[in-house]
């Protein structure tokens, strides 16, 4: 809440910065202009943790986010994913361990500080205004203007053009960036939020459960955009509870359970089946399947659980 207040009270001028920036770069801002070479660590956390008074929300978590790679953070509800995101996003300061960005140890206490380092977070609600056109949403809070004094006005054609080309670069081709963003599908809206973060200088992109509320096809679309962001050289942190979504795009997997890390693996060190098993805690899942089978032997849930146990 306190962080929200600070962003409300900040003078208008501070939002001018990205505008001045983009005015120089124009729409020549394409993949990897300011990005480090692929594989360079952007964020490295070692033994990081967070306690709120007596409650230890997160303890001893170690992983890294590298340029051009996707780090997946997996965990069930209450595993500590939110706390981990908040630390990365600068919303909460960590209370143990080290948080290194670009080789320098940092203590970040505001989302603004994280943004300044190129760490952008796309939250589940996407921070979009449904009734506003796509292009206005894209530039909201960092609008490009032209002219001075009383005739200082929005550079509408410029913003529309940039929004369209940036979205195209992410592989989403909108006929009309003038339509309200609420008319886009969930996956497309996610993509606009990602494209916006990329355009405004993100090097590390934190995605908070981007596929959680989506159907199978929409999830597929979002996974494609995650891959696209990775290919543009960004370091992506993909938070999810679904190992089937994480495995195809992930390069590194960090599993959380009850606020603790269950390990940090490169893709070569772990298979999808192992991942699923670790996520669900194999024995527990088997017991659950058994229990459900007695009540509803033919339900779809039972079948899929059964399949998962069989394959793992």
């Amino acid at each position, binding site marked *: 809440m306190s962080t929200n207040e600070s962003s409300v009270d900040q003078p208008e001028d501070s939002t001018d910065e990205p505008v001045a920036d983009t005015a120089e770069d124009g729409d020549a801002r394409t993949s990897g202009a300011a990005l480090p070479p692929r594989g360079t660590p952007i964020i490295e956390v070692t033994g990081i943790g967070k306690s709120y008074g007596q409650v230890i929300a997160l303890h001893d978590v170690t992983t890294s986010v590298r340029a051009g790679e996707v780090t997946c953070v997996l965990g069930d509800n209450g595993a500590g994913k939110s706390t981990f995101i908040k630390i990365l996003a600068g919303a909460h300061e960590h209370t143990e361990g080290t948080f290194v960005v670009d080789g320098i140890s940092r203590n970040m206490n505001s989302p603004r500080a994280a943004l300044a380092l190129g760490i952008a977070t796309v939250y589940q609600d996407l921070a979009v205004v449904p*009734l506003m056109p796509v292009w*206005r949403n894209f530039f909201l809070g960092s609008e490009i*203007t032209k002219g001075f004094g009383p005739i200082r006005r929005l550079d509408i054609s410029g913003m529309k053009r940039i929004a369209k080309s940036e979205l195209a670069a992410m592989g989403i081709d909108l006929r009309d960036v003038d339509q309200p963003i609420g008319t886009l599908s969930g996956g497309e809206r996610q993509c606009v939020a990602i494209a916006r973060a990329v355009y405004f200088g993100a090097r590390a992109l934190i995605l908070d459960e981007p596929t959680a509320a989506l159907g199978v096809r929409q999830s597929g679309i979002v996974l494609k955009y995650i891959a696209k962001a990775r290919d543009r050289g960004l370091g992506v942190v993909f938070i999810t509870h679904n190992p089937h979504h994480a495995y195809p795009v992930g390069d590194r997997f960090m599993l959380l359970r009850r606020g603790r890390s269950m390990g940090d693996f490169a893709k070569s060190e772990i298979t999808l089946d192992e991942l699923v098993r670790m996520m669900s805690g194999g024995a527990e899942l088997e017991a659950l399947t058994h229990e459900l089978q007695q009540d509803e032997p033919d339900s779809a849930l039972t079948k899929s659980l059964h399949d998962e146990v069989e394959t793992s």
Partner: protein
Amino acid sequence: MSTTTAAAAETDADERMAPTSRMTKVLRRPEVGSAIAALIVFVFFTVYTSEFLSDQGVGTWLNSSSRIGIVAVAVALLMIGGEFDLSTGTMVGTSGLMVGVLTTHFGLNIFVAVAVALLAALAIGALNGLLVMKTGLPSFIVTLGTFFALQGVNVALTKAIIGQVAIQGMKLVPAYDSIQPIFGGSFTLLGASVDVSVLWFLAVIAAATWLLLRTRQGNWIFSVGGAQQSSRQVGVPVLATKVRLFMTTAAAGWLVGMITLFKSSTVNGATGVGDEFIFIICAVVGGCLLTGGFGSAIGAALGAMIYGMTQQGIVYANWDSDWLKAFLGVMLLGAVLVNNWVRKRAEVAR
């Protein structure tokens, strides 16, 4: 696996994009409904009565529309920003009374008094805004409080100071004649007597439309009304935007207060009371959503025109003037139903 789904989805996305015709685009504008309604009202009274389209008739309903419209446009901006202001009507009385009392009773220079009234209005607007934002209470409740407080103060304080509830002797105030034409003057246009307030009205519409559609402030007004939390997350100064909007409606109330004072050379404790609902009705008829994030200044102006035309048309038609309120009520309900439908179409994924 992901590539095939993605490729399929991409071709799908194109199929789903039904080409929008020019007609559909026009129909999606917030002010369309009020434009059609205004046209119907205009044609009806033109045909039904002989005085409506006469030089004098046009002047009368233009003047009355303008006094309502100035505040209605400001209220529309505020409603797009997601808030209500019920204190606008009494603000008209408050600022008029303030100038009247300061000049006739205390002998303050009239220009200074007008400026003081503006500052007071802006301060009350800012107070409204800060109370709403800092307490998190609905603006409906906060401004209902201001509405009643001002209504009481208007009568009680005026009575306590000058011993009566109406301002008298305005015309005897020094320099009255030099400021009167700015707010209360009138001129002849094509045979019709038109008040200066119509020019103010046009200026307010133009400024509000420019602000809404062509400036960053305007973008922020739409966004704070449409999704406040999201606006915060992307760095829109929510508090400042909303406080400015409350100050704008208060300033519009001040302007109409000055117009009323200098047009009729008097105001009284009841001036403006009850008009706050008319302003809101005009804004809603003009396409503003009660939930914020959608609407237009031109729509609210058209809403005010509908009000002004109906008010005078009913007089010319020799109907009981109480029908006006019944008409307004039905218009409001119709407008809300149409707006609701528009919003659903705009928000739901196609």
